[in-house]
């Protein structure tokens, strides 16, 4: 018999590895990816491929030549960042701009903080917001969806998003009912047939992916439920106060980047709190900030900013909200 291995317990390990978690997220993004190819054509495929490739390349270059350490690009985390970054840009974004975004996401937001697990802010969102601020025109020119196999092509090549139409309309003094003819219907919004970033348009596809993540227990209900609930309650109150200038909660839910943000960005493990109550507080904060920006901010969409702002609070939330300790309650023994 060979020498025996000796180590501390436990001697068996569960099924999950970091790579399996990361690639589960990749699989969960496939429905939304297919929808984006359907509506935005080969451009969606090209942008996503370039984004993933550049994220992997930057991580490789930094790990190999700058840090001169172990190269860990196969763990899948850079793939997830690459897909999410592509999903957060318009489908006609020039490729060089996207590559800059990938560099910011991986180089600045992730590797500069110490790599996987050490970043404070969601890398894909940092990349997106950097591009939004640096290239505002490119980042807010939205191609109109042109479904594959559709015989009649829309006349316009680009157009505003639902949230954009409403924001501009309200500013110009119009009311929601007046604007309703200009915005796509609920069904179009749900399926993805409306203007927006590459991967955010189809609420249905994103929810499908989210169900997969719930089923595999990659994400828990806390953040999505808290996020969605605070959006519904907040916009619901506003809508009840004045439906002329405030959209109903349903439009808020299925437009913009909310579904992508709720299920795939706010739930990013590295940049979200760890205890159940911490996650709920985080989700509530994301929802409130999103609506503050959407309703009163100068941008029509606030999901990215909201999540990044709440990312900054995560260390504090982790300190303040501990898990429920065993033996917290003292039950007195009754003398019988």
């Amino acid at each position, binding site marked *: 018999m060979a020498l*025996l291995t000796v180590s501390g317990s436990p001697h068996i*390990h569960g099924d999950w590895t970091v790579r399996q978690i990361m690639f589960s997220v990749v699989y969960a993004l496939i429905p939304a990816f297919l929808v984006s190819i359907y509506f935005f054509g080969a451009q969606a495929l090209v942008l996503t491929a370039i984004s993933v490739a550049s994220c992997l390349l930057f991580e490789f270059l930094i790990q190999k030549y700058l840090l001169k350490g172990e190269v860990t690009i196969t763990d899948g985390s850079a793939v997830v960042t690459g897909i999410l970054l592509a999903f957060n840009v318009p489908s006609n974004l020039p490729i060089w701009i996207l590559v800059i975004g990938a560099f910011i996401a991986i180089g600045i937001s992730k590797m500069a903080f110490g790599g996987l697990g050490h970043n404070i802010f969601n890398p894909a969102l940092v990349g997106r917001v950097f591009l939004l601020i640096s290239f505002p025109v490119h980042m807010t020119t939205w191609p109109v969806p042109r479904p594959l196999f559709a015989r009649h092509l829309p006349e316009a090549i680009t157009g505003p998003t639902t949230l954009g139409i409403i924001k501009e309309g309200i500013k110009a003094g119009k009311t929601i009912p007046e604007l309703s003819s200009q915005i796509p219907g609920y069904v179009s919004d749900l399926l993805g047939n409306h203007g927006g970033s590459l991967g955010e348009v189809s609420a249905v596809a994103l929810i499908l992916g989210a169900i997969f993540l719930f089923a595999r227990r990659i994400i828990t209900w806390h953040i999505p439920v808290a996020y969605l609930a605070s959006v519904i309650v907040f916009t619901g109150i506003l809508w009840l106060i004045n439906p002329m200038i405030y959209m109903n909660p349903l439009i808020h839910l299925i437009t913009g980047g909310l579904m992508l943000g709720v299920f795939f960005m706010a739930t990013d493990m590295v940049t979200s709190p760890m205890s159940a109550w911490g996650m709920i507080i985080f989700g509530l904060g994301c929802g409130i900030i999103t609506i503050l920006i959407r309703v009163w901010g100068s941008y029509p969409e606030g999901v990215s900013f909201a999540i990044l702002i709440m990312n900054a609070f995560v260390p504090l939330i982790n300190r303040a909200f501990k898990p429920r300790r*065993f033996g917290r309650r003292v039950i007195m023994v009754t003398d019988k």
Partner: protein
Amino acid sequence: MRTFRLGGVHPEENKLSAGRPIEVLPLPSKVFIPVSQSMGAPAKVKVKKGDRVVVGQLIARGEAFISSNVHSSVSGVVARIDHVTEQSGYRKEAVIIDVEGDVWDEAIDRSPAIDREIRHTPKEIVDRIFQAGVVGMGGATFPSHVKLMVPDGKKAEMLIINGVECEPYLTADHRLMLEKGEEILIGATLMMRGLGVKTCIVGIENNKPNAIAHMSRLAVDFEGIEVQPLRVKYPQGGEKQLIQALTGREVPSGRLPVEVGCVVHNVGTAYAVYEAVQKNKPLFERVVTVTGRRLKQPSNFWVRIGTPVSALLEAVGGVPGDTGKIISGGPMMGKALTMTDVPVVKGSSGILVLPAQESQRMSVRPCIRCARCLRACPMGLQPYLLAQLVEHKEYERAGRERVMDCIECGSCHYTCPSGRPLLDYIRVGKITVGQIMRRRIKN
């Protein structure tokens, strides 16, 4: 169906030997009986080289309050008293006996009849348990008589018998319940009398339906004893988790179970109590599961204390060639052995043989803050944080974050997708924080 509330994991059960009746392992030619087989102070050796001993004869006496007697498990001649390597890998004092025949102490009642008649006072019961050297058979090896002496100002309300056996692979308790169920319930009745309580709950996980059915049927004839099935979840056999699962009560941090009116004993202990009190038989043998997927025949054995582990492995057809690790106990909390020439002791519930490919830990990756450890921790701790604090030697904060509450179940390390050795760090933290606390009490 009930289970404990916080955390927990579901390792593969692998109860390979559940269907195998307990066989009597042939006597070895030599036994190595460590004199320290329980928590607390080692017992004082009472024999010397060349002495003839019989089975059940006292060979070392527990003289401290927390200590326990040790008896000879064989008859023969004391070859020497020496330090031998035991399961922990350390060398400890042991009595080494050359086996000759199988002559039992005459005071032991060897009749096969089950003796249900309770004829001892509570005090006598506790004393007999002490004399017989009975300790917690689930692995913790706390002297059982001490647990039956309720501290002043506290009141025990119920006895809990632990038949959970939540460790994967192990089946010793399962087989014992099937084969010695009535004796276990008599043992429980004796302990209820010793404690002065009227109720007893036997907790069994529902992956052992035959044991639940058997024990429930038997319990009908025992006043105050109830069998409660539990939904399978590791570590349900942890004392605090079991109390919470069965009664909803939570033992406060840093306190004993009696604080919430409960005293917990393992089914193996209940059986040993029965033998000690009713049959006047000291604890010198126990059931040990010998298991592993590569073994020819995973089995359960009656093993005399002091038998070398190698003898158990031979009895199941030897160690397979690709063996990488041999564990005393289960895969979640057991100790990896450095060699097989170490003796079986009172706390040895199983010997698990793992192939080489399952013996190596996975490589360690950075923490991705997935919070799986947090959700798995049955004590509601933050294992990632405790490990990080210990890594940075912030012991004061680790103490405040309740590192001492950790029961070392290993669920955190088991569940970590980055393969981080969280429990290794936490153990270091517990030892260091414990030292700091003791130093403070002294000053």
